[in-house]
């Protein structure tokens, strides 16, 4: 606070001394305020913190809030599958394997099942791969059933609640419906034995049979080291307006078109193949990650399932995701405000995609980019090895912690049974 010279006040300082003091204090308050706001605004200029109840949650630390007990299953349910086919570690369903490894060494793990809040079954249902690397879900229901029979007979905790305090990681196309074709998946529904358990899955679509209300949606696995190896300096100007690489028509499974992606990807191609603002093609360039970092919008349309690793890639590389999937439930939707970060386009509005994207005000676009630049956003989408604070593993634990404490009603009375062990297709009842 500088002493203001009397000449500053003007003439006759002696008469106006009380006013003088008031003015001085006001000015000094203003100066102080400006000083503090200037120092704090400098940090906000580069990235914007996702403030508010939704965004702060990303930085919660789950340690101390919950305890997880990991069942010890024979290795035929996990390690042997991985030994048979190590490709399971790199495909987009690898979250189930890494979650197991994370939990084994995490501080939330407890060896005493009586004090555990949640129970985890280390089973890799998505590790049965075809020669080309696609997972076959046909044996998964049987494998799951056999695992649950094992835990219910060897430990009392399953029967206590019929699985209501157990959680399973099912990252396959349609989650616990265990089929890659949507119609068949809907027909099967969620595996009857898992209906009381909490499912941690990548699939999420509102009002869909395969999404249970209490499920936690997670991002698909994308290899963090591979992505980090392709970072380019952030001052390289973003010159691509819209970017997409992938199939528009799946000629092998849907030769006539209209089935794959509900016709949305084909609509994107037919409407915008001539548009120079849209850099879209089916090529597999080696500079895919670098190109995403040079694009402003990255399309994330649905495919056979509404989710895709493109969302993770777009968030990591700072490209605003344009999500074209009706009623999709995005990962960690209760922690990440996706409407503020991405652009949602209804499938019926795809022909007007260019109008929609160009009519977004520039300020909104810049704000979305600032939110994307937030490192906690990027961390929350990845499954790094070893685990780091704020990554997807911790967000899953946060989600599980938010569901605590368990309602008393999940504990069944002695001898009570809610699940029907013989429900489902006959083929599922065969032992595995």
């Amino acid at each position: 606070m500088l002493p203001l010279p009397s000449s500053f006040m003007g003439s006759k300082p002696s008469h106006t001394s009380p006013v003088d003091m008031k003015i001085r204090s006001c000015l000094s308050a203003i100066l102080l305020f400006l000083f503090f706001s200037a120092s704090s605004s400098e940090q906000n200029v580069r990235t914007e913190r996702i403030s508010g109840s939704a965004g702060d949650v990303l930085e919660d630390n789950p340690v101390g809030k919950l305890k997880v007990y990991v069942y010890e299953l024979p290795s035929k349910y996990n390690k042997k599958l991985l030994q048979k086919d190590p490709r399971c570690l790199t495909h987009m369903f690898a979250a189930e394997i890494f979650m197991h490894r994370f939990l084994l060494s995490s501080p939330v793990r407890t060896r005493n099942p009586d004090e555990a809040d949640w129970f985890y079954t280390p089973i890799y249902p998505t590790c049965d791969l075809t020669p080309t690397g696609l997972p076959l879900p046909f044996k998964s229901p049987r494998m799951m059933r056999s695992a649950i029979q094992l835990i219910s007979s060897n430990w009392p905790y399953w029967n206590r609640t019929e699985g209501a305090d157990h959680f399973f990681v099912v990252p396959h196309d349609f989650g616990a419906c265990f089929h890659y074709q949507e119609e068949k998946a809907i027909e099967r529904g969620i595996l009857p034995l898992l209906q009381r358990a909490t499912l941690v899955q990548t699939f999420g679509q509102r009002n869909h049979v395969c999404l249970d209300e209490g499920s936690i949606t997670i991002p698909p696995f994308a290899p963090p080291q591979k992505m980090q190896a392709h970072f380019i300096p952030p001052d390289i100007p973003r010159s691509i307006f819209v970017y997409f690489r992938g199939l528009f028509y799946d000629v092998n499974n849907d030769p006539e078109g209209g089935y794959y992606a509900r016709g949305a990807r084909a609509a994107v191609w037919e409407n915008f193949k001539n548009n120079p603002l849209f850099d879209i093609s089916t090529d597999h360039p080696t500079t895919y990650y670098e190109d995403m970092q040079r694009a402003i919008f990255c399309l994330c349309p649905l495919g056979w399932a509404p989710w895709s690793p493109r969302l993770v890639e777009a968030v990591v590389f700072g490209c605003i995701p344009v999500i074209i999937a009706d009623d999709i439930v995005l990962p960690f939707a209760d922690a990440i405000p996706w409407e503020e970060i991405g652009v949602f386009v209804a499938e019926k509005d795809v022909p007007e995609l260019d109008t929609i994207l160009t009519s977004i005000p520039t300020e909104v676009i810049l704000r979305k980019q600032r939110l994307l630049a937030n490192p906690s956003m990027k961390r929350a989408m990845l499954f790094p090895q070893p685990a780091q604070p704020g990554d997807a593993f911790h967000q899953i634990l946060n989600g599980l912690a938010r569901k605590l404490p368990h309602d008393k009603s999940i504990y069944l009375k002695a001898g009570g049974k809610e699940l029907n062990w013989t429900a489902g297709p006959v083929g599922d009842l065969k032992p595995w």
Partner: protein
Amino acid sequence: MKLSALHQSYLNRRSNSFRSPTSLDSSVDGSGKSLIAVFWLILHCLCCLISLVLGFRFSRLVFFFLFSTSSTNLYSAPFRPDLPVKHLDVHTIGRNLDPGANGTVAMATATKSSRVVVGRHGIRIRPWPHPNPVEVMKAHGIIERVQKEQKTIFGMKSSKMVIAVTPTYVRTFQALHLTGVVHSLMLVPYDVVWIVVEAGGATNETGLIIAKSGLRTIHVGIDQRMPNTWEDRSKLEVFMRLQALRVVREEKLDGIVMFADDSNMHSMEFFDEIQNVKWFGTVSVGILAHSGNAEEMVMSMDKRKEMEKEEEEESSSLPVQGPACNSTDQLIGWHIFNTLPYAGKSAVYIDDVAAVLPQKLEWSGFVLNSRLLWEEAENKPEWVKDFGSLNENEGVESPLSLLKDPSMVEPLGSCGRQVLLWWLRVEARADSKFPPGWIIDPPLEITVAAKRTPWPDVPPEPPTKKKDQMPLSQGNTVVVIPKQQQHATKIRKPKRRSKKNKHEPRPTDTTTQVYSSSSKHQERN
């Protein structure tokens, strides 16, 4: 066979759909559903048989012709798994279809299933699937704004103005060289002030070229004319540059002064690099000391290769002028162009056919903060001489004469390892003439009659008669020949449309003969 394969796939897909209605529409009224189901089953079988006979799915055509409305509404109803697939069409469909009514009924009763329907959907294409220019412009505006934001966050914090100093004079190659500088300066992403000093007075010729740049220019003329020898020319250029520096001092221009000689070539990284200079910097300049004689060039290259083979230990003479640094990136001296190989063979007069050699240290390799030239500037270092009291008669060879201590110069471009600009001197013959402003205003001074006129339709005109006519007519001056060819092809245009391949004319009629000769002429040129 294609027919059966199509039909097979058709049946397979449809057999899938029959399984799903059991789960979806469990709550629909039973009796009503069975009637409708029977009706659709019969219709479905009928369509199957007809498709089998015809060999393609005819139902699409039926619906296309029966129900197609105007193409403005391209929405097609989504496929419901319990209904046959007939009503789907890729492009146009009407909203008032029977299945649509059924669809809404079924949707209202199926509570658990999502609003999003599984199955085949139409591919929506708008009537004019091409970019809208207004939107393209908006998108470019967005891109620019995003890039500006990126620059402010990650790039340069504040950029200084670039003050370019160019000595020039009117001659044949002036337009060639100066246009290069114009384009380089137009590409510079920072503010530019261009001081052009012209020998022989400020002329309109130069003024027109520099005005096209759209940059802020200061055009200064000095009365002396450019001399004819390279040595005198470089001395006058030094004088002209000092004049420009005086302008900087008087106008108190604030920025970074660089010397853009009109025949030099600058890279854009050069302008980015010089923003890093604090007071006085130097960069490496690539010297392109060529001789006009190509054969001699090749001979000298061979000779140099032989020499290099003999003395492999000795470093070959790098044609680069710039700072020399020690291993800790401190300036220890300068690399100077080695003139020994060219001893006695260098050009003396401006139009000599020999190698043009640079001075020991070219001005273009130095950049300085304009505040060094001001009379009074805060924080001006002591190792700089006062520019106002510079005595030119003492011989100012390089900008180092402006400094008391040349070791304080900052080496730029990773200590001279990057060559950011190239020095070249190329001039035309002394007696070469060029049209003023490079605009061909008739009449041309030199006209040469074409010896052969291969176009029989166009009568050869004597040159003298056509002095007052526009060159587009059939004169046979040297310059006009391409226009004549254009004229000839203009007449032939309607006939030529039938031909597909331009370069394979068939000698069937005279018209094609004319064209073939003109194309041959083109190739010859």
